[in-house]
């Protein structure tokens, strides 16, 4: 077994150098049907071994696309040589960071693979349902994407382990013509942690979500442009989750803090309304499994929750071992790499705004003139806390009632300023379990939140 092969390589770690050896396999399964044409049908695997060696404040890293004892030895040697090569250039040497206790960590769930035929049949069945049920569509697409990761981590001075991240999603996109002939689109993603049978054995709830998506599309086809300006809005949990990840999460990743983010030097400050608390959960949320459970990171740190904002006060950053040492903080297991040849970076896991006490109905009823913003297709944030999200679905709120749908728009603001305007928070967290983050490398993440009421700048005509 590769696990045994890699564990044996500890004897090749040089004394005094902080070394990690990682074996990793990513599997991808995808099928894509557009307007009934099966245009994408692929399976792929990427696997290999990497090693990272820390010496005097710099890292040597190497990776090899082989899964063998000989490849492991070669990779450790190359990483060690690279660390020594950099040592020639760096005159100011840093001390090693503190060692962590050794243990062996496994995640409770491993990976099940399904034949492509099963995936193709699933997509065809759903596509046929959409074609039959919704003849008013201009176009439709159904895609299935599965990305599973399996990692074996072996370290010189932290925990070892064997962890897995199975995840799959179904992506449905529909378009229809508006009254003036414009193509109006809307999409949704369904699925999450686990495999095909976990999420798509019973298609009844899938069809209910597609029905809801179609209703929103029909409303949007008769929609209006949002009025530009600063508005009182209710952010659906999906949009609030995006705030937690993009607008707040990235600014409190320690590598970006060191790069000069707006959160630098503000630990202990009131940065949000006292109704706002944000946590990056490791693997367990309120007694249940978080949507992307991380038990051990790629530096051998046993994962635990990272509290970012508590009752509006900035409490901490997310770290890798090096930044934790720099800030005198405890690492919580946020360091992960996407494929075997990627060095680990500080990444979020399950980042959410914590629930409050209001109901969504009361929140909508409280708005005289504003918007209910439901879906977002992407988001970006900056060091300054300035952010934007694309809004793909939403409704006007007039006199406490939902009104006309709105067409695609963009919302923007400065994260901490926005969070200071939060004055209502709903009582239920909804997770968006199929997120990806693109900070140098792609990385599966999840984000979530309750609905929140705040003021935000909306782009429009």
């Amino acid at each position, binding site marked *: 077994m590769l696990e045994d092969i890699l564990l044996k390589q500890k004897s090749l770690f040089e004394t005094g150098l902080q070394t990690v050896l990682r074996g990793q396999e990513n599997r*991808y399964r995808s099928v894509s049907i557009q307007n009934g044409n099966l*245009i994408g049908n692929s399976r792929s695997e990427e696997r*290999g071994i990497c090693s990272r060696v820390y010496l005097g404040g710099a890292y*040597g890293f190497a990776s090899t*696309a082989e899964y063998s004892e000989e490849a492991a030895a070669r990779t450790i040697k190359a990483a060690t040589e*690279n660390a020594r090569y950099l040592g020639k250039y760096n005159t100011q040497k840093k001390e090693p960071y503190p060692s962590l206790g050794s243990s062996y960590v496994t995640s409770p769930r491993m990976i099940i693979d399904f034949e492509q035929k099963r995936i193709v049949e699933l997509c065809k069945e759903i596509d046929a349902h959409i074609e039959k049920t919704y003849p008013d569509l201009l176009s439709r697409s159904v895609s299935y994407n599965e990305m599973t990761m399996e990692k074996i981590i072996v370290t010189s001075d932290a925990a070892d382990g064997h962890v897995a991240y199975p995840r799959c999603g179904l992506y449905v996109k529909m*378009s229809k013509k508006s009254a003036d002939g414009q193509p109006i689109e809307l999409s949704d993603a369904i699925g999450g942690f686990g495999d095909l049978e976990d999420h798509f054995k019973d298609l009844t709830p899938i069809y209910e979500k597609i029905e809801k998506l179609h209703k929103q599309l029909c409303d949007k086809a008769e929609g209006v442009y949002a009025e530009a300006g600063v508005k009182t809005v209710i952010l659906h949990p999906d949009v609030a989750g995006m705030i937690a990840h993009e607008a707040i999460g990235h600014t409190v990743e320690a590598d970006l803090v060191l790069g000069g983010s707006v959160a630098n030097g503000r630990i202990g400050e009131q940065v949000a309304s006292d109704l706002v608390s944000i946590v990056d959960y490791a693997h367990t949320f309120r007694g249940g499994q978080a949507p992307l459970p991380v038990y051990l990171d790629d530096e051998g740190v046993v994962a635990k929750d990272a509290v970012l904002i508590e009752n509006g006060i900035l409490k901490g950053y997310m770290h890798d071992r090096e930044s934790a040492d720099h800030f005198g903080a405890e690492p919580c297991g946020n360091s992960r790499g996407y494929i075997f040849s990627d060095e680990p970076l500080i990444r979020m896991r399950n980042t959410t705004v914590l629930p409050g006490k209001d109901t969504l109905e009361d929140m909508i009823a409280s708005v005289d003139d504003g918007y209910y913003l439901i879906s977002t297709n992407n988001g970006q944030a900056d060091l300054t806390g300035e952010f*934007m999200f694309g809004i793909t679905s939403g409704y006007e709120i007039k006199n406490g009632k939902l009104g006309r749908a709105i067409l695609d728009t963009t919302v923007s603001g400065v994260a901490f300023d926005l969070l200071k305007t939060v004055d209502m928070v709903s009582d239920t967290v909804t997770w968006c379990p199929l997120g990806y983050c693109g900070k140098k490398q792609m990385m599966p993440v999840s984000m979530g939140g309750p609905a929140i009421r705040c003021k935000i700048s909306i782009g429009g005509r």
Partner: protein
Amino acid sequence: MADLQKISEIITEHIKTKGDLKADFTITESTQREISMKDGKFTLFRTLFDNDLSIMVIKDHKRGTKYINTFEKEAVEAAIDEALSSAEASDPDECFDIAPGLEPENFSNKALVPDIDKLMERCLELSEDIARDHKKIKVMEMFAKYTRGHSLFINTNGTRDDSEYGFYQIVMEFAGNDGQNSTGINVSWVNFDNLDKKLIELGSIEKDLTDAENSLDPINISDKFEGDVLFTPACAYQVLSYVMGNTVMDNALVNKTSKWLDKIGEQVASPLLTIRANPWDERIICHEVHTLDGFRSENYDVIEKGVLKSFAASLYASNKCGVERARNTGMDAVVDPGDTPYEDMVKGIKKGLIVGSISCGMPGATGELSGVAKNAFYVEDGKIKGAVMETMISTNLFDMLFNIKAISKELLCNGSMVMPYILAGGVTISGN
């Protein structure tokens, strides 16, 4: 080093045992060396040894693909079997096909032997140049890398392309920072094939650093108005990519959501605009030599003087939609320069912005774009008044193409695109 010829023979022989099918495959062996710097210090040195095999098979008009990163015989043969199983589980579509057989050919580019010590020197020099000449810049991270690869592309119609390539790349992430305040993140990157020049002189690195320093004290725009936007080359590329994605690419054609489905030969933009897809332009470093379907890549024009000349259709989309196949699939964009100097373009702006990038969602088929103007400067009466924050722009991309007022003489060549500044009117600009 892997013996690519021997691996290709194993694949070819195994495919022959599967009966009558069409297939193509690419085997690539590559090595990448990457140096990272933060705050003037080297922090990471990576060496990545990679193998890649991608195979596509078509049997009875059914298509399946498989990708692995090992060359072991058993794994390679299993990959072919799995691609075939996937195809058999699929639906037949007579539009799936591969290119006809072509004469075998060898390709290579200039930078096949790296000089890592020299690259290190150039990185140190860049770091010193920034520390000396751009004191209000904080380099968050800089990656300098060299990639060397060798690949074989073979199809069952007899094509055999043997390609050797090597290129350098630098990516810089930085912000203006005076110790108190920080600007947003800027990214500047360049592909290049030699180390003759100082890195700060490549692409738009020097100008991007200067712009970031000049963005430290942003001014507020409080009103909303319709004005001009001068897109920097990087931002022009971003905007034109959105247009192309919604009009000439496969998805827009197959889904019939493109607004240009019946516009070949018609005016779709200002006569000032010519967009070419030119992988063989000498300013494009390390480009595709064959299309994804196996045709030899050739240059072609997408838009010439505002007239739509070609879609970027793959062989499948071409067969499916009854349109002409594009001559390459790389979309290495080369936009023709105009006759207006950049300085004159700025002077011609009555009220508007210079925009370095747009933070926005991918616009849909309607072309409606709204987003936050990043790395942006407010211009009034031909003078740059200062950097702006929290300023949104919105426009319709199809209208914007007709609202182009000028294209610059100056071009950004960063190794993967050649792009001028583009000035467009009629953009809604709203401050906070």
